[in-house]
């Protein structure tokens, strides 16, 4: 004992524990992760490579190989010349349709859901929680069950097949998750702030616009991400509730790629697919962790 105390440096380990970067554990860990990531990256890689090749090279070569000769012709063709069953003016029409559908749908659905969430947290009235519970359970009902009654309802008010009809549908089906998102966020805002504003004489709309809205910008961004990707990616509602002239990009893409007539132009198809995925991908890569927060909101039951 005394000996150890006298020569601490000579006996046993001392100082920081050594760490090896290439320990077996790390090799297995990072190896697995890298292999898994290949599975995720592969389709994106193939998509990009194919879309930059000419058809002769696509037929001859290997889908994983980078193009020998880069061409943007498939992109141009997918954008402005590709044929659906109806016409041959490319995906651009679908793109603009999707823009026209997405912008009002996102604005209206977020506005309504945020007011819902605010009313549910701060202005509870008899039955408000019941409606919310119905809303949440309703979000599990397969859309197919409600499609036809909505068709009838929209027809009655003369909006079936129109842009605003689809906006209403997106607002309805976005409402459960968005209301949950805003409700959970607003309930994390200290109640005393709301009380202080009431003592200061602000009413329902005053508190919403002057107090809640300005301090909730992050959650509005989360909702924006959720809705832009969700509505842009929608296929079913686009098919059911709009006319062919108004088909969103996803529907048009499917019509282009899976159309039976003509020779398959895989490079154009992949360019079209990439073009359709571009908006959500950009949203995803720009938003980073906020995207994760948005999708996780669906899993956290309040």
């Amino acid at each position: 004992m005394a000996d150890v105390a006298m020569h601490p440096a000579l006996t046993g380990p001392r100082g920081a524990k050594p760490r090896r970067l290439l320990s077996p554990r790390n090799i297995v860990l990072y190896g697995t992760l890298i292999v898994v990531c290949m599975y995720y990256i592969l389709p994106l890689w193939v998509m990009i490579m194919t879309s930059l090749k000419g058809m002769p090279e696509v037929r001859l070569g290997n889908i994983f190989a980078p193009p020998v000769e880069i061409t943007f012709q498939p992109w141009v063709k997918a954008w402005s010349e590709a044929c659906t069953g109806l016409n041959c003016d490319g995906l651009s029409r679908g793109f603009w349709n999707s823009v026209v559908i997405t912008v009002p749908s996102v604005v209206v659905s977020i506005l309504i859901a945020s007011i819902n969430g605010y009313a549910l947290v701060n202005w509870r009235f008899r039955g408000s929680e019941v409606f919310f519970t119905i809303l949440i359970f309703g979000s599990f009902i397969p859309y197919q069950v409600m499609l036809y009654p909505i068709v009838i309802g929209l027809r009655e008010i003369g909006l079936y097949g129109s842009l605003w009809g689809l906006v209403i549908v997106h607002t309805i089906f976005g409402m459960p998750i968005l209301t949950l998102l805003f409700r959970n966020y607003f309930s994390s805002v200290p109640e005393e702030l709301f009380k202080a504003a009431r003592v200061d004489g602000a009413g329902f709309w005053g508190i919403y616009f002057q107090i809640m809205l300005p301090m909730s910008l992050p959650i509005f961004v989360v909702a924006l991400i959720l809705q832009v990707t969700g509505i842009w990616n929608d296929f079913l509602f686009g098919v059911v509730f709009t006319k062919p002239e108004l088909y969103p990009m996803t529907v048009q893409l499917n019509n282009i790629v899976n159309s039976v007539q003509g020779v398959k132009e895989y490079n154009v198809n992949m360019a079209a697919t990439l073009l359709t995925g571009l908006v959500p991908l950009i949203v995803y890569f720009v938003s980073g962790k906020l995207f994760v927060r948005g999708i996780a909101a669906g899993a956290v039951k309040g």
Partner: protein
Amino acid sequence: MGNSIEVKDLTLNFGSVSVLKNLNIDVQEGEFVVLLGPSGCGKSTLLNCLAGLLDISDGQIWIKGKNVTWAEPSERGIGMVFQSYALYPQMTVRGNLSFGLKNAKVPQAEIDKRIARAAEILQIQPLLDRKPAALSGGQRQRVAIGRALVRDVDVFLFDEPLSNLDAKLRSELRVEIKRLHNALGNTMVYVTHDQIEALTLADRIAVMKGGVIQQLAAPLEIYNRPSNLFVAGFLGSPSMNFLKGKTVDGGRAFQFGSTKIDLAGYEGGAVLERDQAILGVRPEHITVSTSPVSGPSMPAEVEIDEHLGADSLLWLKAEGTNMSVRVPVEGRLPPGTKVHLGLDIPKASLFDAKTEQRI
């Protein structure tokens, strides 16, 4: 001086749960009333009812001679200060102070005047253009008080305003609130669970439990003559010593185990003979001596002594009951010492064990 706040038969139910039961309380103009009690006793709920932030189930609330039972919070002529400060994070201090006035459509010149005055009183002039996030806890609470101040109202409601501050800041702001009250002369209703705050600030304290006011009286009265066991046990640290026994000799003495304590000098009602009674004596109303003492006394044995700095606490056992006694530092005794406790009967309280009320 008239009544500033009158609460008449106030009842509040949440569903089938009764949170406040038939409360009556009058607060005089310029009075500082503290609502004190453990968490869940309904003190904050009562304050929210006064503010109009909760709709009551039955009864009336009058403020400054006006029935405000159905009035909106902003119409009641009150200002409120919250525990979490509740400052609007996106507005500057000036914005926070002016928000309510703008909602009330007060002219800009008047707003500027009132903010200048409040800022001067609270010494927050240099902070006016900062956001709340850039302020310290103490500064935030000053701004929160300022928000009540600019409303130019007669009644201030405080909802545990100092609970989020550290001990040092808390005592500083406590003094400041007292000073503010002296300077402005407003009626103040102040909710807290901290008995030091209650004892130091209040003109009168309302001790609450289970939605009922247990006792409403001046601090010293409450401390010295608690109306029931709960109030006696809630105030004071360490808590009052409770000796379970019975009154004998026609109410002239208290039988505690094998010890008989003479009750001569007890200040209270008719003691009578009760077979279940509790004698309450505060730790500072007991003297400790190693030799027998004259007057009401009992034997005990020291178990632990705690050094508190300014004085000491002795934990003893007497007739199987744990007791604490506050003694000067030089009065410390080692564990195991056999002692005699002298009781100050005029300052003691006697309770009926069945009704738990003071006799």
